[in-house]
């Protein structure tokens, strides 16, 4: 129950934020918002002992029992790690944002979106039902969109927001397809129940499809190659958002999905190959591209991409354990997964600190362009220390946590490469090489980050007095770097209480929890891993010194062939094609729109009747026709024909009114007083509307249409009229569908009303009525808006201001 509360807290707070803003405008909302992550953190902390003991907590809330939909909140080791990151980093980021964002910004919006995101993210990691998970997943995309576009007056923010939304939502929908395929195979949306059936799933024909769909969802969210292009553009968001969403939490949702679905999909070899190599390619490509960046945040974005690739590839290597019998000799393969989780935590600590430090530099120096920055070491000593610690950890140097996970990463890569070559193609030998090359680039960009910003002499610093940031802004990164160092000192505490229970979630039928938790030590003799690290440092320093000499290779790839170029091209083409298609039918002529409606009516309704041979009617059983009915028909017909030849709008309106009132007399004759009344009033009100609209209409003039079009229109109108007449005559003999009149005969018993028209509206078809009412309301708001907009025409345009 309390875990369920943990998801609700951020949403409830998000509801309260606007109220706080309205009633206490002087109060700093940030302090109020801070309660949410702290409360969640408190709830989670109370579960740590239970989870560390290998237990899980579960709570089911029946949401829509009649549809079998329930929100099952499931807390195990894996969701514990992620939820601790979400709430922990969330608290630090809010603390940082209180000082980072000026109070002139739309803070109530900012915190509202941030809380929405936090709740959605917690929902993703706690949901057991895939559909609920998907809903929360898309909510994270939406809130990320809103946060990236927070400074929406900037063009780049809006473009970045749109790009991230397009890519992640496309991935999300693909993932939804994957979930539906899984449901098709297993008949359940519950992840736990799917895992129970996992061993028999992998030779199902839909298995590969589901696997690829789910992976695309995970890869787009976690910015894996080639979907990574949205992440650098997302850096237009305020820095607290970048630190929180785009390095610590949201981009790790894809990692979460991969880890969570490993027990289901790892039985297929495709999973191992795809996850490992997409991860490795992302790792190398991200780190390679980070070196050429000139914007500090873009550099960190590419670094995040590459680190996410690292974690992803480790999860891929770990899935190999599903193909062997787990015992003491093969337990080494599960270690890769353990390292993935370990590095996940480490990355959040050092990358969060680095983002915050870069935010401070941007805030104080007014720029984050490394071509302009330099020599900040003496001006900002604390920020410098934070950056150095973060960068060293990122580069994998002791004495920081990044060193431990980097060493373990190397040993997992080596273990994968030494897998028996008879069962795997020798391409796995590439794994440690790619890992090593990427680490060199990681080392280089870490050097760039520190040296270009803090050492070399300043080049074109903006003309401001630069000084150290206020302590409020420094607290959060200081806490994070103390974790960076603390984890290095006591890695096994973290491993025992937080990481090892998660191993049970990923290998549910594997070995025991203790067996899968390796002992982490900083020093283990001069082994291959250590030599690899030393090699990274040596090669990294040499290449960093020679950077100006080889920088030219970055300009080799022509711009239109880059992934970004291709994405923009595709977007441009899609816009062109869709606007071309739209222009084909949105001609602005009402007559043509009516034409489309009629053609569809003819084709679909008339076609349906024609195909079913339903156009058979006999006049035998019809009631006799009376003289006044004939007279009425004559009057209405004359009015309709006369309307074609009149030359003024008022006359046309009056003639139209004659038809309408004539119809209501018919209703009276056929004893339908409700309909007659309604028809009368509707006719009167629409006549008033007509008259009101006259001023908007252009002068009445005869259209000079080519006679061919006129004949065509004539044929269609007559055909529609005939079809409607034919259909109304033949429905009397139409028995294709079940008759519904039995309901109406028992209206009083079923709905307690004697007026069946009303019982239809209010009870039998109440759902229709309700939605119609909603549609009406929306339509009236639309009319109101459009007229308001038209009145303001000539004023400022809000877009692209």
């Amino acid at each position, binding site marked *: 129950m309390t875990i369920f509360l943990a998801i609700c807290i951020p949403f409830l707070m998000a509801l309260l934020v606007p109220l706080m803003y309205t009633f206490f405008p002087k109060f700093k909302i940030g302090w109020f918002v801070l309660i949410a992550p702290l409360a969640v953190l408190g709830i989670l902390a109370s579960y740590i002992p239970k989870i560390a003991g290998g237990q899980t907590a579960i709570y089911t809330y029946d949401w829509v029992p009649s549809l079998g939909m329930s929100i099952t909140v499931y807390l195990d080791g894996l969701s514990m790690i992620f939820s601790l990151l979400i709430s922990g980093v969330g608290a630090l980021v809010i603390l940082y944002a209180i000082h980072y964002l000026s109070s002139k910004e739309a803070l109530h919006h900012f915190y509202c979106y941030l809380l929405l995101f936090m709740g959605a993210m917690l929902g993703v990691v706690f949901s057991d039902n895939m559909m609920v998970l998907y809903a929360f997943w898309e909510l994270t995309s939406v809130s990320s969109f809103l946060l990236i576009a927070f400074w929406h007056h900037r063009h780049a923010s809006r473009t970045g927001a749109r790009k991230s939304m397009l890519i992640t939502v496309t991935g999300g929908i693909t993932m939804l397809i994957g979930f539906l395929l899984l449901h098709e195979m297993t008949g359940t949306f519950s992840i736990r129940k799917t895992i129970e059936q996992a061993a028999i799933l992998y030779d199902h024909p839909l298995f590969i499809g589901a696997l690829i769909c789910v992976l695309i969802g995970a890869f787009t969210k976690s910015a894996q190659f080639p979907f990574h292009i949205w992440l650098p553009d997302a850096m237009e968001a305020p820095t607290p958002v970048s630190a929180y969403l785009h390095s610590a939490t949201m981009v790790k949702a894809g990692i979460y999905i991969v880890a969570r679905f490993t027990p289901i999909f790892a039985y297929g070899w495709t999973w191992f190959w795809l996850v490992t190599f997409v991860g490795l390619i992302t790792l190398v490509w991200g780190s390679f591209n980070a070196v050429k960046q000139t914007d500090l945040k873009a550099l960190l974005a590419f670094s995040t991409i590459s680190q996410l690739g690292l974690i992803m590839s480790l999860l891929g290597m770990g899935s190999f354990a599903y193909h062997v019998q787990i015992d003491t000799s093969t337990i080494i393969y599960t270690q890769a997964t353990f390292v993935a989780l370990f590095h996940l935590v480490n990355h959040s600590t050092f990358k969060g600190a680095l983002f915050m430090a870069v935010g401070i530099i941007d805030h104080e120096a007014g720029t984050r362009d490394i071509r302009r920055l330099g020599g900040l070491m003496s001006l900002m000593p604390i920020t410098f220390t934070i950056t150095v610690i973060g960068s060293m950890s990122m580069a994998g140097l002791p004495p920081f946590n990044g060193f431990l996970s980097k060493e373990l990463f190397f040993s997992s890569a080596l273990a994968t490469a030494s897998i028996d070559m008879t069962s795997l193609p020798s391409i796995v030998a590439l794994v440690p090489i790619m890992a090593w090359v990427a680490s060199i680039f990681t080392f280089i960009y870490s050097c760039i980050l520190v040296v270009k910003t803090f050492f070399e002499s300043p080049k074109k610093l903006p003309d401001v007095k630069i000084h150290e940031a206020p302590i409020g802004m420094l607290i959060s990164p200081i806490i994070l770097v103390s974790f960076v160092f603390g984890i290095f000192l006591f890695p096994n505490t973290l491993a025992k209480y937080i990481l090892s229970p998660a191993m049970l979630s990923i290998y549910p039928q594997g070995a025991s929890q203790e067996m899968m938790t390796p002992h982490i030590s900083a020093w283990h003799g001069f082994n291959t891993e250590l030599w690899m690290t030393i090699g990274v440092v040596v090669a990294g320093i040499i290449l960093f010194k020679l950077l100006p000499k080889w920088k030219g290779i970055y300009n080799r790839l022509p711009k239109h062939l880059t992934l970004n170029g291709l994405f923009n091209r595709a977007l441009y083409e899609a816009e062109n094609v869709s606007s071309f298609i739209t222009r084909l039918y949105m001609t602005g002529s009402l007559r043509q729109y009516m034409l489309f409606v009629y053609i569809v009516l003819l084709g679909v309704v008339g076609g349906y009747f024609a195909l079913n041979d339903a156009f058979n009617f006999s006049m035998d059983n019809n009631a006799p026709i009376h003289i006044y009915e004939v007279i009425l028909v004559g009057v209405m017909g004359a009015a309709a024909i006369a309307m074609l030849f009149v030359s003024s709008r008022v006359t046309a309106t009056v003639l139209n009114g004659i038809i309408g009132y004539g119809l209501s007399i018919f209703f009276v004759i056929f004893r339908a*007083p*409700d309909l007659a009344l309604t028809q009368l009033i509707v006719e009167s009100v629409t006549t008033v509307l007509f008259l009101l609209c006259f001023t908007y209409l252009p002068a009445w003039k005869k259209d000079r249409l080519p006679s061919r079009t006129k004949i065509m229109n004539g044929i269609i109108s007559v055909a529609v009229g005939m079809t409607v007449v034919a259909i109304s005559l033949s429905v009397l003999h139409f028995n294709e569908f079940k008759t519904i009149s039995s309901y109406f005969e028992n209206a009083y018993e079923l709905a307690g009303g004697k007026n069946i028209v009303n019982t239809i509206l209010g009870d039998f078809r109440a759902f229709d009525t*309700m939605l119609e*009412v*909603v549609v009406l*309301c929306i339509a009236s708001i639309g009319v109101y808006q459009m007229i308001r907009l038209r009145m303001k025409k000539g004023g400022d345009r809000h877009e692209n201001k």
Partner: protein
Amino acid sequence: MRINDLLLKTVVRIVVFIILTLAIYLFFAGHYSPGGGFIGGLVIASAFVLLYLTYDLETVQKGIPVDFKVVAAIGVLLAVGTGFGSVLFGVDFLTQTAHHFNLPLVGDKELGTVMIFELGVALTVVGVVMTIITSIAEGDED
């Protein structure tokens, strides 16, 4: 250009109340004889339209200081709310119920949740019609 039509104004002043009374009758009669929320709402709206036609916008708005957009919104909330109300009592969405009450003056009457739903429909219809007509009418004045 305003025509000072004394005859029309005098008649409308009385007729509007007759129309409104009819509307209320139609609304309450709805479940057993012709009438109902939709028609009731339309009749109310047509009474207002008649007022607007006879007098001008400003005068009527002073007499009926109601924001019809809000009326429409309240109507939608009522209609949707009855749907959710039934969920709270553990029955399916939009289930309607009714009971007999012995009321003073009017005697034995059946009151049901369908009335609330119908009230929602009626309010929405009034709100929508009036919003559209007044905004179009305001729009064409400038």
